[in-house]
């Protein structure tokens, strides 16, 4: 899409088409000749994996929608009917349910890769923001989809999440009623959630197109975080990256298949195989695993509105990240101090996820009572969540802004080819570089 197009129409039809709608030229320039840095590692294969997973979700979802009944009285039974009486319905439904989890595994790796290699920095800010939009849409889609089987977790999860909007001052209650389509979570809610669950994936596909467009203007970042200097630094996307991504996608599918065929329900909650009953609240309402870190942040704040704002803030802060990080060096390979803080950040996210699955007041170290701090024992998951959440925000609003100004990065190589030719994937001792020339 960017740069000089090398497409040459070969047949008469291609020439005819190229004069009218150069769609073949576009496909050729994006998927065949697109110059791609030759040093991309396996962390870069998750973009392709995500694209494939989106297609898997849309295709299986369309088939499921042919059999699913969005009605409170029939939804649960219709999902089980798909599993029992529809030909290969069990396969389609388990692929869709586990596919959502695989999608999130891949997107989290994709995001962490971005953070580590500084791919969000200039000139890729718009690319990054579009990615954040996709992530938000994915979360909305996944939440809406989890409601559809109308099990106990579907129902009570919906009650909890939709009630969050009720925490907003003045308009909160009106918004909640509007979302529900009534005064409680009921059939109108299920109906509209089904409609929106069908709509959002196509919006995701649209933003993905923009995301790829925005990728192809500046081109890929790479593990060294330096700009492509010459043709030496790149290889055409096809066949070099089609085959590498293809290999990674096949590996990822082995993981996917191991869940679908051998552990299809391990990532779900058993309570969602109990039909929804508004009168019986599960002892322990937990969201799907991919929402647990945000659930922990929500519960870490004693005030409901504060919790809601902080939870959305945890995603909101990502949108401004390109302007919070002051370092001009993209890759953390050359930022040893930042690398350490990054590892703690990953750990904090995992700790938040762990806390989200636990009861807030339960002790982290069993059997130990320390002392009451404000509203809970210090040895409790709520305090552990607070510590981890504080680090989560500090990483973005304190550590990255300050570190960029104070740290001394390692010398950055001159070009992608330079270190590659001497020693693969490491910094050569004699690489000339100065942080002043960074970028």
């Amino acid at each position, binding site marked *: 899409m960017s740069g000089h197009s090398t497409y040459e129409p070969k047949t008469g039809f291609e020439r005819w088409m190229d004069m009218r709608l150069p769609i073949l030229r576009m496909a050729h320039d994006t998927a065949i000749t697109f110059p791609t840095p*030759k040093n991309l590692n396996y962390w870069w294969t998750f973009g392709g994996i995500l694209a494939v997973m989106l297609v898997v979700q849309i295709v299986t979802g369309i088939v499921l929608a042919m059999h699913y009944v969005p009605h409170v009285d029939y939804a649960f039974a219709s999902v089980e009917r798909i599993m029992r009486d529809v030909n290969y319905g069990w396969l389609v439904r*388990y692929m869709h349910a586990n596919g959502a989890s695989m999608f999130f595994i891949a997107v989290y790796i994709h995001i962490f890769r971005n953070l580590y290699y500084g791919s969000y920095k200039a000139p890729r800010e718009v690319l990054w923001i579009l990615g954040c939009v996709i992530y938000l849409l994915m979360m909305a889609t996944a939440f809406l989809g989890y409601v559809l089987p109308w099990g106990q977790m579907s129902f009570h999860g919906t009650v909890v999440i939709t009630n969050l909007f009720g925490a907003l001052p003045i308009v909160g209650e009106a918004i909640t009623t509007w979302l529900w389509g009534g005064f409680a979570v009921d059939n109108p809610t299920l109906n509209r959630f089904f409609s929106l669950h069908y709509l959002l994936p196509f919006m995701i596909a649209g933003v993905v197109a923009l995301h790829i467009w925005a990728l192809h203007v500046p081109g890929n970042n790479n593990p060294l975080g330096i700009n492509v200097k010459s043709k030496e630094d790149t290889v055409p996307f096809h066949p070099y990256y089609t085959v590498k991504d293809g*290999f990674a996608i*096949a590996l990822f*599918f082995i993981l996917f298949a191991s869940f679908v065929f051998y552990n299809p329900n391990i990532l779900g909650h058993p309570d969602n195989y109990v039909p929804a009953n508004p009168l019986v609240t599960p002892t322990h309402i937990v969201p799907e695993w991919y929402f647990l870190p945000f659930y922990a942040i929500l519960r870490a704040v004693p005030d409901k509105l504060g919790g809601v704002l902080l939870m959305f803030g945890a995603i909101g802060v990502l949108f401004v990240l390109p302007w919070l990080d002051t370092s001009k060096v993209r890759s953390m390979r050359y930022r040893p101090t930042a690398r350490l803080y990054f590892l703690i950040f990953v750990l904090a996210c995992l700790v938040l996820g762990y806390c989200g699955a636990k009861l807030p007041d339960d002790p982290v170290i069993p059997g130990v009572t320390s002392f009451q701090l404000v509203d809970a024992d*210090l040895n409790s998951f709520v305090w552990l969540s607070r510590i981890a959440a504080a680090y989560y925000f500090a990483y973005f609003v304190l550590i990255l802004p300050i570190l960029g100004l104070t740290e001394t990065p390692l010398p950055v190589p001159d070009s992608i080819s330079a270190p590659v*030719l001497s020693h*693969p994937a490491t910094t050569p001792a004699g690489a000339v570089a100065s942080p002043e020339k960074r970028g």
Partner: protein
Amino acid sequence: MLRKVIALAALGLALTAGPAAAATHPEHPHQLGWSFQGPFGKFDKAQLQRGYKVYREVCASCHAMNLMYFRNLGQKGGPFFDEKYPNPNDNPYVKALAAEIQVNDIDSETGDTIQRPATSADRFPSPFPNEAAARASNGGAMPPDLSVIIKARHDGPNYVYSVLTGYANPPPGLTVAPGQFYNPYYPGDLAAYWKGDHHSVPKGGFIGMPPPLGTGKVTFDDGAPSTVAQQAKDVTAFLTWASEPKMEERKAFGLAAMIYLLLFTVLLWFSYKRIWRNVAH
């Protein structure tokens, strides 16, 4: 830092002799070996047949299985599947089993409510006409539908087996209300009913179901001993099949899919190595 936290925690422990949170957890279920476990696990057909008998003669008097049809019993992978009858509706064994059960219907001539023997196309009938009737007959407790019960509980097969066989005499000091039964494997919090030391609240909870199984309660046609353990094991296997009737098909498909994916991955690996052989990277 860590040392400080531990020291503070120890100090806090010494200073505050406050009561520890007394949320009890049920006993961990027995871990049995099941024929259907693992990537190559299959159902034991004889066990499923025995299990159906236990369900029909014991459980079905209170528990519905609304997602089950008699034809399911004769479908591929089912307890009474016969290769001679690929259409389970034609399976004479299934037809006979269905005909033993009366189901409600409407007389097409008069419109009156009637009862007729079930056919293989019929759903398993519910023991109670509605939830209120079910609760009224069971001391206020609702016997859950068993169609997907194994998927609806953590460690489903082991849990169901343990609850069925786990009834125990309540420890002295535990007040059991009439119509309630103490079961150490059933979830609950017994602190409010416990007179003893609050650090040793018994594990488990109260269940509304009286011990359902008993030695000799079901006569197995294949001569299997009719012990509580045998009945519980067999009915659990049947319920596991009912929860996941396509499990065998899923695992068989999975094996083929895995072999295909592995070969495809290896092929792509060598293609990758070959295509990249002249690129320093």
